[in-house]
């Protein structure tokens, strides 16, 4: 079998992988990123709505062909379709972009290449190579040949379907209530308001998840749905729920899809362990998706940068042990864990609310103006009108 040697191998060329490869290459490490697909960024598996504030943290300017639309805020629709408008000033001046993920992923891959990283597409990692009980690389299939890629540091950015973590002995399995099945149509010729990302909650719209309308521009929007595996009655698929919703909404039913997007997303707590000897898991592979929103891009990028930086520290120390790589685990936990755990609790609590309770919450919030949207502010406003609902949130109030 042919063999190549690198200092860092990144498996998966999504945003997390590219940010890791960029950071590692920038630090001077000989870095290879492999991607099983034949084109980076496709097929898209994303609703494409992202917040913007974190881009600065990873050193990316908010400009370029990957931005499709800038939104002013969000609207939350209750089961009976009353809605609550949250504008940027209420969300800590955080606006949002609807992006072109295929272009965004390519943009980040280019950034990694500019820093000196090698990139191989159509290269499928098949398993870890162990020596003396420790991973020293992966075997991969590239075109029609198997190849050994040796690297003391392997960054697993292999997404929702993560295999590398499993191979390294990390428990990555999810329970059904922590998995959302997703489907989205990019609809052209619809009546959407391009100023807002819309979210529809409730068991009539999307059991255990939500339906989204993220406008790509005038008359064009990603209309998608995430449905909890534990909550969708019978064997109804994401497609059944999405088609049902669109049929009920004439402004969208007249649209034509130019792109169908399928996938699944984890809405779990982060993994208990995200490092092993020579291996670091980033982004979706580490289950760092925000469990409340299902958004994974920001945390993937942030954790990817940390992993690339820790790879450099490991090389400087000549120590690739799990114990040393815990530095990576500490970094992402310090930056992300508190919010992930809080939002997991919020997701679980919201999941217990009935449609009637959700209607009441939106109704209560419609009648007051919340200056800054925080969990506490929302709870106070609801408490004023429907105190019995707030009881559900005692754990959040205490936290």
């Amino acid at each position, binding site marked *: 079998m042919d063999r190549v040697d690198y200092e860092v191998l990144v498996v998966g060329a999504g945003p997390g992988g590219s940010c890791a490869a960029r950071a590692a290459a920038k630090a001077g490490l000989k870095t290879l990123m492999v991607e099983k697909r*034949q084109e980076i960024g496709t097929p898209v598996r994303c609703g494409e709505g992202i917040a913007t504030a974190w881009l600065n943290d990873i050193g990316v300017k908010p400009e370029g062909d990957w931005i499709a639309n800038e939104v002013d805020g969000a609207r939350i629709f209750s089961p009976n379709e009353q809605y609550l408008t949250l504008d940027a000033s209420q969300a800590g001046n955080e606006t949002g972009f609807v992006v072109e993920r295929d272009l965004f992923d390519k943009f980040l891959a280019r950034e990694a290449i500019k820093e000196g990283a090698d990139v191989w597409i159509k290269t499928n990692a098949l398993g870890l190579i162990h020596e003396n009980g420790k991973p020293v690389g992966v075997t991969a299939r590239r075109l029609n040949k198997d190849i050994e890629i040796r690297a003391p540091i392997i960054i697993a950015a292999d997404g929702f379907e993560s295999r590398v973590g499993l191979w390294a002995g990390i428990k990555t*399995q999810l329970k059904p209530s922590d998995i959302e*099945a997703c489907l989205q149509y990019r609809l052209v010729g619809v009546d959407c308001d391009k100023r807002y990302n819309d979210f529809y909650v409730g068991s009539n719209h999307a059991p255990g998840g939500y339906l989204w309308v993220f406008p790509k521009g005038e008359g064009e929007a990603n209309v998608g749905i995430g449905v909890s*595996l534990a909550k969708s009655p019978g064997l109804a698929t994401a497609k059944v729920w999405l088609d049902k919703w669109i049929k009920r909404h004439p402004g969208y039913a007249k649209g034509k899809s130019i792109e*169908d997007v399928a996938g699944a997303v*984890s809405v779990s707590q982060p993994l208990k362990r995200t490092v092993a000897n020579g291996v670091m898991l980033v982004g979706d592979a580490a289950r760092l998706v925000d469990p409340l929103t299902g958004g994974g891009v920001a945390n993937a990028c942030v954790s990817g940068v940390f992993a690339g930086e820790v790879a450099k520290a490991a090389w400087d120390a000549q120590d690739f042990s799990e114990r040393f790589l815990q530095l990576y685990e500490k970094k992402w936990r310090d930056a992300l864990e508190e919010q992930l755990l809080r939002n997991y609790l919020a997701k679980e609590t919201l999941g217990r609310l009935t449609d009637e309770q959700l209607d009441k919450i939106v109704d209560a919030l419609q009648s007051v103006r919340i200056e800054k949207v925080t969990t506490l502010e929302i709870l106070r406003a609801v408490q004023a009108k429907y105190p019995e609902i707030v009881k559900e949130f005692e754990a959040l109030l205490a936290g």
Partner: protein
Amino acid sequence: MRQVDRDTCMHCSACVGTCPFDAITLFDMHIVFNEKCVDCSMCDRVCPVGAITPIPGTERMKPKIRATT
């Protein structure tokens, strides 16, 4: 054992990541099941387009996943 309707499948890997037994691999544009499959049916449930179904008469009686849900 499961079967994949190749005309419906969108190669999204939702089943790959959901499978608790590492029994599914995505090769380019096709999904392959290996011998680790125990017919827990999690893949049927996660498939956004309903492309995965049991092959009639081949299902094993091992709904192991129940224990972890």
